[in-house]
């Protein structure tokens, strides 16, 4: 085939009419034929072509000193494994690992694939398997940017997976241009070049969109295939290989193939960049333009026909060519007369930078359609590229234009302010848990989870920090607790939400992660001159990749935490719940309504933007969730090595019996049918990217892959270009993933093909008009841009959550048929209206309905609960009834009134619904439409609200009443909280300036007084009377201003003042009367008592008027406080009596209460004289109050009683 190609090129007999005929064929009838031809093309020629290009260019790209080029020779020479080896070492250090264990992978090992071990060898696993498997061509291609694979010549049987073990050590792709080296397998196809004549007759098509001539190519490739099937390859192949080997060696004299472990970048870094000036590519120096032109056309048409597995790989390659740097040797070679000979030989078309650039520019020109949709920044870079300008002024112009018109920008990274999942009472409060214990444990677990997360954030980048070692036990302990309380579902939800929350960012992480520049990229672009292009290249990457066009699936940034968490937890229960949660969320997001917008309509812009945003957010979240779902689902089957055929067969037999967790096949089919595969495919790809080795061979997944492949191959002209591009991009990536077998792309498997044909008819027809839904050109620009932009991609930065609005329909009142008619009418109404109307109505209905429920809760239910509270209070006071029964009784009473909820709910919806609809719909909406929309919204809202209410109102009332009741019973200290609560709600007096002293201050001061009173006190330590009086005055102010008062403060104040009163009457407060005292010193007793009386009077009034809580005045008569009196040297019975009278007078205590207190006090073991006095006092008190004589001036009374008491004693 090589010969064929070279002949083609040399003789300018290009088969480039390609498929132009295919189109005229009428695809329906010839699907089969066409597919055959396609598959043939794919299978042999395309890979060959791609490899050819890689091989040709390898010298240019590898030899350039500034590029850390190393292994142009990584061809199938045993000795040349050094290249991969080095890269392996390098990759290990620079790449985000899929698995944390890092096992050093030595070059030349043949791990096939995706396993912790191989994956840890950088992306080696990735390239490994993709290289290794199925077709040689494909292999080469995939390795293009990846790694040179060194496959022994004996393994060139392209059709046999086993015989073609992948290169284990290939260190996944790195950004270095040097990588695109084709292993010898290229040449394997040379002997098959016999049907070259097939192409001779077809003239070169001038159209850039040239297509393969189907007719000729069909024959040609049939022949090729036949040839291929024979195993005759080896001899000539071997020769070829030898030839190439020599050539390579000669080209790379100075190259040091040794030092296998040396990271590649060190080498390049050590090269002073200025010493390696970039060759100035000049169009004048391009040789064999025609051949290059042919190749460019050929290559472009392959891209255009989706025959390449990954467009972005090819673009990347082209850009590498564009930015390639020639060496002096290359330059020399340019002028070397020998070169012409080589050119004639057809092998050295790409020997010079000029040629490479020429080729690249040509291809870019052909691929302008794709290029022009790239992100604006990239277009700028391209437009400013000098090489393009000098090689193709027209392309340069077009790019400038495209740049100016482009609006595609990578959305800026918005650091999201909230990184935690908010607590939502609807899902997280006590009523969502089976028991208090579960609730409280989950409360702790939530905190532990974040603690772990913070610890991880702080430490995971430190060397020697090991996730499992540090956090493993904590996680497992947490899992045990979760299991004990059945909290897994809550936790899984939290986990899932947190995952979305944190990993929406660009590299799936917060701003701090993943920002480190990729060393590979830096190396590749060491020269200043090309620094601008660095960005270009960096961006030119496929979805998800920050490290190259085709990185293996990885868990960058914070995703790492979640992955390690799952691994460390190792909990079956947790995984199961997590899968449930992920599936649910995926289905929810996947159900997102995609709305079509007419792009001509300027007004739809905002909506469109929103829609795009919604779409982007949903898509990014879906991909993330699907990746984790895939991870968990396939986790149990993950193996380190590709299983042997036997193992595989038995595993297949076993696993074919089980159903997948999520029926992605169904979803995929559905999405194709509903024309929404643009949303579904990307996440399915993520899911599948984590398959184990066996899964792709399962019947089920075979079908999925088949269907996906179909998406690639189907050339659907109606599909929006960008949509198609996105799908191709993600699928292209998927087919490069290590565990995805190669043959899935270049399939020749009969069974597979048949399957494809089967589905073609069903799927194909659908695919035809698929995606017209996204007909607007800009639809995916942003998305694509972010994908393309690599580092900018996956960002979202949007925090908005999407919840599909679904209005549940409730018990129909009308008959079924009538109802159905109504529904149909409703649908019909919406049908011809703009979709936004429907969304508005649904939205309003949903919100109003839910607000209605909330409103009812806040009003009617709250009222009922208050009623219940009052009722309960009365009854609880009465006697010790059975609480449950009491509750039941009260609730039953309330249920009747609860029925009002429905009426009120209906009213609410009727009032609010239309308001909302009116506000939300455009002003210009016609009256009829508006009223219909209103009524539908009201209807839906009412249905929603009343449906919920009628089902739940009783339970709701009961729950609330019960909660209130429990609170009521729990309020500490005060048996009658109702009264207190009422009292406490008192407001400040009108005009209150809130400048009273703070309660805390007052308590503090009273405490000081008490301190002095209780003692021990120093000699001469006194309490100033005026100050104390003033304090009480301030206390009164403080109590009146309710602003800063809280129940505990007030209760404490009450207690303290009671204590103070007791101490006052017991003469325990060393009052100093200050200036006042000398005046009336002649009547000592009176002077001394009067101030105390004054203070007591103040206290009475404060207790009575100012306290909002009840004052425990009865404590005055407690044993302890009476003790103060008993211990007093001079018992002030008159004062005490005055106090008692005051209490009665101010209705602070009832006479009977005091009497009984006094009575019981008398029973206690007091000093006998005290008891006597007490009894006497009792008598006086009783006699006074039995007579109920009209109140006399209290002072006189005091004096009177004082006289009596003292005389009696």
């Amino acid at each position: 085939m090589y010969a064929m190609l070279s002949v083609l090129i040399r003789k300018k007999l290009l088969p480039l009419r390609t498929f132009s005929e295919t189109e005229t064929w009428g695809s329906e009838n010839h699907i089969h034929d066409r597919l055959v031809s396609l598959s043939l093309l794919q299978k042999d020629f395309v890979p060959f072509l791609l490899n050819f290009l890689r091989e040709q260019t390898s010298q240019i790209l590898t030899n350039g000193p500034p590029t850390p080029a190393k292994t142009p020779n990584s061809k199938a020479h045993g000795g040349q494994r050094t290249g991969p080896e080095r890269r392996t070492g390098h990759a290990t250090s620079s790449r985000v690992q899929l698995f944390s264990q890092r096992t050093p992978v030595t070059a030349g090992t043949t791990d096939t694939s995706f396993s912790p071990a191989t994956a840890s060898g950088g992306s080696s696993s990735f390239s490994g398997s993709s290289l290794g498997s199925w077709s040689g061509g494909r292999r080469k291609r995939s390795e293009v940017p990846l790694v040179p694979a060194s496959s022994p010549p004996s393994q060139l049987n392209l059709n046999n997976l086993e015989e073609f073990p992948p290169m284990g050590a290939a260190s996944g792709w790195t950004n270095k241009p040097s990588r695109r080296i084709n292993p010898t397998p290229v040449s394997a196809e040379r002997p098959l070049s016999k049907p070259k004549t097939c192409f001779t007759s077809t003239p070169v098509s001038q159209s850039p969109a040239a297509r393969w001539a189907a007719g000729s190519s069909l024959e040609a490739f049939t022949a090729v295939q036949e040839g291929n099937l024979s195993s005759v390859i080896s001899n000539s192949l071997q020769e070829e290989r030898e030839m190439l080997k020599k050539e390579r060696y000669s080209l790379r004299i100075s190259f040091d193939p040794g030092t296998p472990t040396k990271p590649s970048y060190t080498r390049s870094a050590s090269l002073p960049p200025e010493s390696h000036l970039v060759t100035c590519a000049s169009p004048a120096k391009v040789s064999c333009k025609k051949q290059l032109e042919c190749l460019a056309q050929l290559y472009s048409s392959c891209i255009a026909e989706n025959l390449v597995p990954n467009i972005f790989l090819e673009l990347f390659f082209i850009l590498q060519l564009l930015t390639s740097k020639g060496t002096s040797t290359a330059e020399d070679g340019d002028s070397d007369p020998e070169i012409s000979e080589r050119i004639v030989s057809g092998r050295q078309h790409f020997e010079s930078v000029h040629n490479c650039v020429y080729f690249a520019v040509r291809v870019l020109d052909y691929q302008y359609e794709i290029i022009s949709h790239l992100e604006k920044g990239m277009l700028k870079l391209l437009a400013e590229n000098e090489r393009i300008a000098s090689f193709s002024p027209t392309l340069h112009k077009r790019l400038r234009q495209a740049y100016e018109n482009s609006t595609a920008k990578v959305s800026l990274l918005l650091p999201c302010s909230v990184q935690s999942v908010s607590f939502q009472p609807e899902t997280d409060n006590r009523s969502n848990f089976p028991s208090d214990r579960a609730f409280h444990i989950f409360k702790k677990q939530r905190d532990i989870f974040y603690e772990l997360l913070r610890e991880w954030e702080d430490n995971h980048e430190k060397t020697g920090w090991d996730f499992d070692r540090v956090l493993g036990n904590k996680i497992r302990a947490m899992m045990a607790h979760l299991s004990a309380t059945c909290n897994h579902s809550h936790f899984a939800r939290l986990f899932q939400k947190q995952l979305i929350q944190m990993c929406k960012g660009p590299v799936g992480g917060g701003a701090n992660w993943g920002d480190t520049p990729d060393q590979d990229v830096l190396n590749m672009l060491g020269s200043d001159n090309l620094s601008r292009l660095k960005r270009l290249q960096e961006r030119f990457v496929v979805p998800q990749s920050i490290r190259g066009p085709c990185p293996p699936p990885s868990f960058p940034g914070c995703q790492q935490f979640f992955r390690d968490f799952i691994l460390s937890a190792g909990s079956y229960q947790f995984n199961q719940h997590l899968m449930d949660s992920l599936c649910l969320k995926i289905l929810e997001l996947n159900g997102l309504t995609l709305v079509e917008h007419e792009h001509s309509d300027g007004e739809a812009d905002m909506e469109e933007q929103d829609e795009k945003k919604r779409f982007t957010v949903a898509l990014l979240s879906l991909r993330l969730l699907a990746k984790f779902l895939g991870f968990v689902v396939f986790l149990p089957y993950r193996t380190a090595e590709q299983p042997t055929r036997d193992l595989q067969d038995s595993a297949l037999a076993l696993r074919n019996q089980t159903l997948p967790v999520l029926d992605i096949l169904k979803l995929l089919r559905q999405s194709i049918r509903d024309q929404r595969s643009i949303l579904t495919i990307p996440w399915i790809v993520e899911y599948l990217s984590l398959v184990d080795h066996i899964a792709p061979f399962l019947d089920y997944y075979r079908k999925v892959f088949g269907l996906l492949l179909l998406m690639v191959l189907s050339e659907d002209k109606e599909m929006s270009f960008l949509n198609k591009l996105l799908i191709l991009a993600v699928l292209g990536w998927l087919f490069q993933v290590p565990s995805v077998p190669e043959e899935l792309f270049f399939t020749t498997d009969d069974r597979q093909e048949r399957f494809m044909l089967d589905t073609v008819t069903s799927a194909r027809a659908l695919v035809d008009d698929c995606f017209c839904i996204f007909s607007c050109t800009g639809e995916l620009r942003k998305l694509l841009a972010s994908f393309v932009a690599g580092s900018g991609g996956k960002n979202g930065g949007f925090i908005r959550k999407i919840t599909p609005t679904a209005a549940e329909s409730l018990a129909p009142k009308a008959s079924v048929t009538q109802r159905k008619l109504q529904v149909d009418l409703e649908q019909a109404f919406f049908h011809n209206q703009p979709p936004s109307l429907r969304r508005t109505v649904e939205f309003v209905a949903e919100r109003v309905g839910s607000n209605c429920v909330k409103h009812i809760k806040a009003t009617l239910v709250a009222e009922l609960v208050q009623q219940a509270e009052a009722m309960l209070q009365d009854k609880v006071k009465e006697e010790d009834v059975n609480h449950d029964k009491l509750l039941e009784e009260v609730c039953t009473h309330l249920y009747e009134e609860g029925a009002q909820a429905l009426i009120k709910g209906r009213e609410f919806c009727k009032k609010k619904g239309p308001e909302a609809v009116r506000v939300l719909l455009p002003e210009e909406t016609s009256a009829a439409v508006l009223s219909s929309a209103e009524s539908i919204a009201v209807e839906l809202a009412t249905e929603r609200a009343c449906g919920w209410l009628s089902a739940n109102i009783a339970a709701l009332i009961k729950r609330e009443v019960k909660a209130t009741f429990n609170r009521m019973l729990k309020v500490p200290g005060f048996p009658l909280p109702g009264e207190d609560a009422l009292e406490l709600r008192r407001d400040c007096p009108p005009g209150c300036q809130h400048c009273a002293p703070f309660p805390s201050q007052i308590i503090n001061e009273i405490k000081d007084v008490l301190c002095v009173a209780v003692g021990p006190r120093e000699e001469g330590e006194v309490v100033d009377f005026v100050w104390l009086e003033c304090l009480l005055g301030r206390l009164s102010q403080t109590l009146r201003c309710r602003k800063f008062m809280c129940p505990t403060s007030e209760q404490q104040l009450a207690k303290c003042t009671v204590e103070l009163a007791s101490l006052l009457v017991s003469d325990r407060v060393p009052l100093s009367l200050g200036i006042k005292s000398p005046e009336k010193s002649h009547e000592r007793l009176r002077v001394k008592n009067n101030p105390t009386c004054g203070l007591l009077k103040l206290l009475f009034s404060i207790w009575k008027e100012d306290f909002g809580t009840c004052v425990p005045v009865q404590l005055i008569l407690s044993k302890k406080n009476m003790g103060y009196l008993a211990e007093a040297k001079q018992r002030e019975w008159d004062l005490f009596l005055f106090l008692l009278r005051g209490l009665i007078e101010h209705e602070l205590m009832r006479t009977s209460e005091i009497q009984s207190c006094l009575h019981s006090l008398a029973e206690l073991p007091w000093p006998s004289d005290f008891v006597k006095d007490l009894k006497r006092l009792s008598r006086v008190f009783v006699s006074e109050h039995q007579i109920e004589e009209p109140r006399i001036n209290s002072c006189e009374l005091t004096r009177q009683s004082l006289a009596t008491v003292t005389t009696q004693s």
Partner: protein
Amino acid sequence: IFSQEYQKQIKRTHAKHHTAEAIETYYQRYLNGVMKNAAAPVLLDLANEVDFAPSLMARIVLERFLQEKEQAIPSKTLINSMLRDPSQIPDGVLANQVYQCTVNDCCYGPLVDCIKHAIGHEHEVLLREMLLEKNLSFIAEDQLRAKGYDKTPDFILEVPVAVEGHIIHWIESKASFGDESSHQAYLQDQFWSYWNRFGPGLVIYWYGFIEELDCHRERGILLKDCFPTDIVTLRHSMAQR
């Protein structure tokens, strides 16, 4: 600050005073002291002598007293209620002694607790005032609790604002000085929990704090010692989210 330092010291020595022997010694000394002179501040002196908080000493002795009397370890609630209201203590002398202790204790005991509580409450009210003044709508702790939130800061802002460039969702008022140990404890028990549920927020230590503690700003826990002045609110046009 003094109070917090004192508390730390008490915490350090707490165990020492709670050994069985220590308790027994204290109790016996108390009994002897009271025998000699019931009116003397026996317990208080004892506490001062061994450098222990008087109300805690009172608690120890009361506990021991009840244990002897009831022949069973008394419940915490009973003890607490007796400390709060010594008139419930069956023994009059002890009641007086206990009361003397609580009143004379500057850092512990129901009275001090209550003062602390009152101060805290007052600052919350002040904060509420300031929020109202600034027209920032918020949900207060009790409302949150009624809704079933498991952990509730003093205030949750219904519309988040930016303080000194940091977005905050909640404000917690702490009427104390933010020293290292108390801040760590608060972080563990409260602030991170709030963060975990509501996102970043602001803590106001009305009596100041150690500046080095304000190291979680980037992560979302901002410390201030007064109501912030640099507040940026969401403009209405952007009021989404």
